[in-house]
């Protein structure tokens, strides 16, 4: 609660000054009309609100978390790493004069893969992993099964894929005022709760979180000691995200930019990896999956390979907009979908 309150207050108090400063630096949105969205009316909105979100999350974490916790260090490190990549992209875009002038898709993929590889190795190697039990660190946990699917070293490529997915999913969803931050808040709430439950001996055993079959065939339970600190970090994300929505709600007076979308996606992705709850991220972030999936289907299968649109527009929110639904309505409807996905993710707690 305190972490959420601190982050909320910081964003709310600092946002007006931050906006002025960013506008003075010329870091404002210079969109290119596309996809049916009336982007031209959004020209001049300050970018890089993500830096403010991340600053407030880091500050709240510094005050309220045990900062020596490897869980907190890795998750915050993920946020900072992706924020730097995103900030670079935002600055290049703003200086280049239009939204296509940023980092190339390939460069972003490389940055994401590098981090995914580092995180995968960090998780897998016993010397560095915050998870003591090797089987748990190398397993993929699915909601309907008590024990995980042991991938061994295969967990490293999976983590790379997952990190690329998580950061891109939030990045693609961030296409309308307030659209990305609400699903991010819901995912943070779900992951925060899972972090608390996974770190508690009684709850993790009762809910079969991170259980595994020992070599002697007995089902054992593994508590992620110290992972409760991630609950505090997630609370900070919820607090700062809510305050950011205050300014980012339609019509937005600030955008999170790639600084925010890549950082929040990367940070929540890293938290899901550390909690071994990637599957829960897929369910809670169902909207993010749909946004990324629709873009992938349209760009790679439809346009590149088949030479036709499979959806009227992509990502998903642009399809809804193209069908004549107003931006405000599309956003609220997708928030409802995001809330349902988060509830579905919570419901899986009893399906093990």
């Amino acid at each position: 609660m305190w972490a959420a309150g601190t982050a909320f207050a910081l964003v709310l108090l600092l946002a007006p000054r931050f906006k002025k400063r960013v506008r003075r630096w010329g870091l404002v949105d210079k969109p290119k009309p596309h996809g049916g969205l009336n982007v031209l009316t959004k020209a001049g909105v300050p970018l890089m609100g993500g830096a403010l979100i991340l600053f407030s999350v880091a500050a709240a974490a510094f005050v309220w978390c045990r900062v020596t916790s490897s869980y907190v260090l890795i998750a915050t490190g993920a946020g900072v790493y992706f924020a730097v990549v995103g900030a670079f992209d935002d600055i290049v875009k703003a200086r280049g004069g239009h939204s296509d002038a940023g980092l190339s898709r390939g460069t972003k993929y490389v940055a994401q893969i590098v981090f995914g590889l580092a995180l995968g190795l960090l998780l897998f190697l016993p010397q560095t992993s915050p998870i003591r039990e090797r089987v748990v660190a190398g397993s993929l946990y699915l909601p309907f099964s008590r024990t995980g699917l042991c991938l061994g070293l295969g967990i490293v490529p999976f983590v790379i894929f997952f990190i690329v997915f998580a950061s891109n999913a939030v990045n693609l969803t961030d296409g309308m005022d307030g659209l990305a931050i609400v699903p991010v808040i819901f995912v943070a709430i779900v992951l925060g709760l899972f972090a608390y439950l996974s770190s508690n001996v009684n709850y993790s055993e009762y809910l079969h979180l991170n259980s595994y079959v020992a070599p002697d065939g007995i089902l054992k339970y593994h508590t992620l000691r110290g992972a409760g600190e991630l609950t505090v970090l997630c609370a900070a994300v919820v607090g700062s995200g809510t305050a950011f929505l205050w300014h980012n709600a339609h019509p937005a007076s600030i955008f999170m930019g790639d600084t925010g979308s890549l950082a929040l996606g990367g940070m929540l992705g890293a938290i899901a990896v550390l909690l071994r709850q990637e599957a829960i991220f897929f369910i809670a972030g169902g909207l993010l999956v749909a946004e990324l999936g629709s873009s992938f289907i349209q760009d790679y299968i439809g346009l590149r390979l088949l030479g036709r649109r499979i959806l009227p527009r992509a990502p998903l929110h642009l399809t809804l907009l193209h069908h004549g639904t107003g931006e405000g309505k599309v956003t609220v409807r997708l928030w409802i979908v995001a809330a349902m996905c988060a509830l579905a993710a919570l419901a899986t707690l009893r399906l093990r």
Partner: protein
Amino acid sequence: MLLKGFLRQILSLGAASKGRLQLAMSLLQSSNSPADIRRHLPELLSSGNWQVRNAAIKLVAKIRDEDRFDLLIEKLLDRNEAGIVRRNAAELLHKWGRYTPEVERALCQALSDGYWEVRAEAARSLASLAEPGRAIERKLVKRLHDPDGNGRGDALRTVRERNFEVRAGLAEALGALGTTEDAFAAIKTLAADAQWLVRYQAAIALAHFASRLPDFFDRAREALQDVDHLSSGALPIFVFSQRIGRLLDDMGRGTLDPAVLKHRYIHLKHGWHRIDEVRW
């Protein structure tokens, strides 16, 4: 056909194809030399990559290569060609502005294309290029309605076209080309569509129709008054509702001009939000 296109595209994703795409894009963006473009066209048009072929037909239109005018018709009708190339062929025929019996035949045939963007573009192109007449009107009404329906357009359930952009394009075409009771009834059907964008195009089409055929004036005005003005979200200033009001005002003053009405349709491909940019 889809599978064939898919395999063709997979096979064409090599470095040579990328080089040809770059060449085509640079010619499209910067070259103004018809001779230079003509020299590269055979190579670009025979590429396995649809993006290269797409750029190539744009180049044909850019230099108005008369020898290759028929190629646009060919591309439009070639069901093995990528959907976006077929759609662009229809659009380029429209931009070229030459209307021949072959073009009419090809555009009418494209109204039954399996890919919705081609159908929508064909309807829009016909609206701009064709002359009003019974034959073309019959084809448009037939495209709109279920063959088992009564073909009079007095019931929404007879509408067989599932894609709203195509329905909107058909409304535009019927507004510009319709001459009889059947066309008027079909536009009225579209004016009761569940999709407000179709209703909007149909409202303009009703006015357009009446502006050309004064006998329908009073009935078109009545029909316009019955159009559901609500739009699901749309714009905060209710442009749609305002536009209907202004259409009715214009009709009340008897100042409808077909040439002006032509510009009041929204080009849905470019996004409905541009409704506030439509000249009035």
